[in-house]
């Protein structure tokens, strides 16, 4: 029973990883929180649903969702962040601006879905259950874990092994210096946000499939979970977000299974508070959460 729960948690954690890694990627490069990330995630789920509802196969929906969410994230950066970044005081502004973007996106999907919960038609994903060593694993779970793994590995390769990754890191270090060596920061930002949005969109589709409940508010709790994950993993750290997602997936599944149902969230967010107190930079973050030295 415990092992079954841990396994379920691990699969959920994989999907969280898609969400949180994208969130952290953006924070890592610009030091800005994109609070519209939950709305981007929800957009992915809706795009996939309406593609399938229009008679196209699921894989088409999946690809369209990733592309659509990626483009949306890119637009958010251009419309909501670009001007703010130049003004200097972007940290607060980005929170406000991206909350605004989130509200707009939510309204649009609320109108399109007529405030209804939509569900993928039955057997959009074949319901097959595998049993081994006393454990139950559905084909969907395997697909989720597989997709999460493939996407994360691809992204890690992209960020750490390609020239794109080098340019990203150049811009992260110093925007002006990067421009001097011929890297166009805005282009890098476009690409990074696209990547971040596409990951969020992909996780939206997987969550939509798994819980088969797509609505215009579905992004909110995931944004909250995203916070917990990036605090645990360390803001800006991609391996940290990955590890933290898996831990979080398992812990959450266990608390749902073993704690009184109303207390899951209180427990999770209280734990996050403790992490902020004890280890504010998370498992793998750089030292930066702390306030100015000599602050008393």
């Amino acid at each position, binding site marked *: 029973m415990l092992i079954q729960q841990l396994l379920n948690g691990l699969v959920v954690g994989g999907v969280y990883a898609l969400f949180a890694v994208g969130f952290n990627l953006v924070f890592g490069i610009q030091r800005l929180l994109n609070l519209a990330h939950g709305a981007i995630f929800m957009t992915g789920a809706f795009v996939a649903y309406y593609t399938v509802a229009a008679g196209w196969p699921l894989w088409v929906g999946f690809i369209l969702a990733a592309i659509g969410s990626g483009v949306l994230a890119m637009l958010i950066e251009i419309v909501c962040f670009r001007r703010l970044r130049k003004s200097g005081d972007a940290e607060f502004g980005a929170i406000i601006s991206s909350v605004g973007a989130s509200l707009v996106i939510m309204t649009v999907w609320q109108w399109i879905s007529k405030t209804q919960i939509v569900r993928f038609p039955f057997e959009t994903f074949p319901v097959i259950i595998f049993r081994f060593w006393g454990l139950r694993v559905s084909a969907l779970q395997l697909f989720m874990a597989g997709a999460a793994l493939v996407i994360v590995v691809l992204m890690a390769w992209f960020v750490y092994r390609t020239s794109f990754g080098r340019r990203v890191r150049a811009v992260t270090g110093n925007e002006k210096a990067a421009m001097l060596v011929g890297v166009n920061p805005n282009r890098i930002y476009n690409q990074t946000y696209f990547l971040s949005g596409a990951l969020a969109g992909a996780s939206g589709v997987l969550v939509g499939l798994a819980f088969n409940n797509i609505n215009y508010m579905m992004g909110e709790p995931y944004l909250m979970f995203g916070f917990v994950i990036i605090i645990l993993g360390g803001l800006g750290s991609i391996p940290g977000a990955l590890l933290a997602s898996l831990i979080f997936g398992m812990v959450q599944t266990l608390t749902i299974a073993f704690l009184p149902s109303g207390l899951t969230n209180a427990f999770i967010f209280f734990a996050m508070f403790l992490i902020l107190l004890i280890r504010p930079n998370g498992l793998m973050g750089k030292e930066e959460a702390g306030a*100015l*030295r*000599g*602050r*008393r």
Partner: protein
Amino acid sequence: MSLELRNLSKSFGGVIASADVNITVPRARVTGLIGPNGAGKTTIVNMITGMLAVSSGTITVGGRDITRASAAEINRAGLARTFQNIRILPETSVLENILIGFHRHETCSTISALLGLPSSRRETQDLRNRARGLLVRFGMAAFADHPAGALSYGHQRKVEMMRALASEPDYMLLDEPIAGMNDMEAEALAQVFVELAQGGMGILLIEHNIRFVTRLCQEIYVLDGGRLIAQGPPAVVMKDPAVIAAYIGGEHA
């Protein structure tokens, strides 16, 4: 009575920024700290004022250990500073920038301040008058109500100095106070520094303009690569072969 740095060292993850620095800043004197770019002068000011943690060594003011004190405590112990990269409060007026400097001398109770009782209002009015006095002394009375962020570079430096002076410190640490000023402005400031020292203040002057330093200081410390390479009266220090080498080497590097 003096500000004493003893065997002060700082390393950033293995990179040494200051090594074994000993400096004495006496009251009523202007003490110089010079050195080529990247010699670690600002690192020392940051350590003294509690903005950077000290790796080893001690800092004392008048015998009191402030090595691990917070920046605010250090100011309350009688130290004030200006910043090399100007740090003006851009959204507030020049006068309000200076008012902040009086903070450690403000005595009205929290309750009085919260409720706007007469004692709080009187104090604010009194400090405004004193700030205007400072503005007159620095020849900037006309700028009192200007937004500080819109001032010229040289004027912003002066606002920083007035702000630091408002806290009536025993010691002032001036990090390149005349950078960006013309000769006339620098001359006027030199006069102010001399007057302050005559009034009993100990000044640590960090400056690139060697002529300015040699003229004002009785004692000069020369820093290179985080280490002191010379100290003494200006005439002696400027003839020191190590100092000449550091400067010439520095200029050509």
